[in-house]
């Protein structure tokens, strides 16, 4: 699969409650890449992510490894797309380990008390990758915001899906945890996964992403390597800001500076 597009979308459109939220989005993304999806509030980032996960009905065609998403049964889709929503909802005070084990649900492991050795290994790998083993028995409701977001991340990693869709996984985290989460996702893409991250943090996007997709008003207006996709012109037209631009350790540095 190297090089060939793993996930493609053609003419993707989404209407929510009669309002067009996404129009004519076409993209082709390769595995082994970390893709940052950016854009102003209301640009349709979350909707695009949800459409890719098959959580909202959409026009157009989404193909994963050449197969139409609409032709995949729910379970199979769940094995290919791991979805991390905003907010890390966890309604019951379950032990962190049980939450992470839910990542194996699409693989038929519906009961965390009866995991097969294979599922238990996947859970352990995910907990180690997200660094949550030390509080695996603690109740998620007793964890701090940063710890909880790592548990949510571990749950997504435990799916071991070829595509990870993460909606603002770094929001409300302190800088260290932001870098932590991005590094963990970066590791997942380095191992051959396709990771798509919605973020408002252009600095993190520039620092960690291979590809940046810029959405504006439901359209895909720019894409490419961070420095090109987030060109001065795009910053001005889409975000209506100027930015400080530099390079540090061969990564692009983009710091939003002033409104235009």
């Amino acid at each position, binding site marked *: 699969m190297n090089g060939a597009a793993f996930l493609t979308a053609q003419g993707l459109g989404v209407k929510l409650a009669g309002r067009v939220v996404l129009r004519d989005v076409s993209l082709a993304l390769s595995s082994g890449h970390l893709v940052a999806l950016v854009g102003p509030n209301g640009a349709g980032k979350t909707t695009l992510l949800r459409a890719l996960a098959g959580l909202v009905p959409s026009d157009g065609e989404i193909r994963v490894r050449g197969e139409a998403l609409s032709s995949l049964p729910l379970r199979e889709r769940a094995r290919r797309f791991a*979805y991390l*929503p905003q907010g890390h909802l966890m309604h019951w*005070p*379950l032990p962190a380990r049980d939450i992470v084990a839910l990542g194996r649900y*699409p693989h038929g492991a*519906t009961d965390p*008390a009866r995991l097969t050795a294979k599922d238990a290994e996947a859970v352990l790998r995910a907990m180690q990758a997200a660094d949550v083993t030390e509080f695996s028995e603690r109740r998620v409701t007793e964890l701090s915001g940063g710890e909880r977001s790592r548990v949510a991340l571990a749950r997504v990693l435990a799916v071991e899906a070829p595509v990870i869709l993460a909606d603002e996984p770094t929001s409300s985290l302190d800088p260290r945890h932001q870098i932590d989460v991005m590094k963990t996702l970066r590791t997942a893409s380095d191992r051959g996964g396709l990771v798509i991250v919605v973020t408002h943090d252009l600095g993190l996007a520039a620092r960690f992403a291979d590809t940046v997709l810029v959405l504006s008003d439901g359209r895909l207006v720019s894409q490419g390597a961070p420095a090109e996709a987030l060109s001065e012109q795009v910053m001005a037209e889409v975000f209506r800001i100027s930015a400080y631009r530099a390079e540090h350790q061969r990564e692009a540095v983009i710091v939003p500076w002033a409104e235009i």
Partner: protein
Amino acid sequence: MSIQSVMATADIAARRRASVLAALVVLVVLLVLLSLGVGPVRLSPVSVIDALFGGGSDVQQVIVREIRLPRAVLGFAIGAMLGLSGAAMQGLLRNPLAAPELFGAPQSAAFGAVLVIALGLADVRSYALPVAAIIAAFVSVFALLAIAGRNAGLLILILAGLAISSLAGAATALVMNLSSNPFVVLEIAFWLLGSLEDRSFRHVMLALPFIAAGAIILLSQRNAFRALSLGEETAQSLGVDVGWLRLMVIAGVALGVGGAVAVSGAIGFIGLVAPHLMRPLIGHDPARLLIPSALTGSALLLSADIAVRIIPSTSDIKVGVLTSIIGVPFFLYLIMRERRALSGGVA
């Protein structure tokens, strides 16, 4: 940390749950025996067992097998169904204050049954009664979930539930109001209070198939409740068909509660209370709470039904009255505990 230690801690928790379950089974069996022994003629557990298996005097056999056994079976089955429905609704709505009785399901079922009685469509022991109750319960739960929408907060659910149960109560009152026969009205009024008294195996046959079907449907969905702990959208992304799950829960609750209400009248607050009693012992996993909550529901209803026979009073206390008298203060206590969520904080 190793795989062994991951599995080991899970094992300890599993063993504890198994012992709680075993204790509950023993408790329910003892309560069934007690229920068979308590009444105007008191029988010891030994003579109860004797009579059950064909020993003892003819009188004892009639008392145990024909008079008290249907009552005990109904107490067990209806209590279990109420406990199970409460746990299932709390799981579906990810909300500890969810229960069929708070959402007007039994009240609506009662309305369905009362309508059939008052219109003289069928006699009190025909299958028309549970069917009407089930349809009314289905409509009420469906309406509640439709009004509340996805990811509804506590406040919306409880307000919508209040509205639906008030409507069902008003509709029932209207039927009684318009009824020309005062004896029918009196009979309905007493039946509405909820009771297991003077029930025969005909009643058991009337309710049991529906209760069993409802219970099977709810239990078949148990693992989906666990995935739902992460919210509907994440559950969907994990391969749970949330729309189907909702429909199954509505159908299961309606079948069980409708079938139960048709023979016992409205018995409140067992569905709300049972899961709460189990959480400290079993944990919060909504899938694991289902069966323990059902057994707790059985234990609660059997105990209440024994209590109404023991409490000295001039006329018999209805078991539904007793469960509400105990259940409502418990509900108030829960509201106090959930105050933060109710006043608009995090749910």
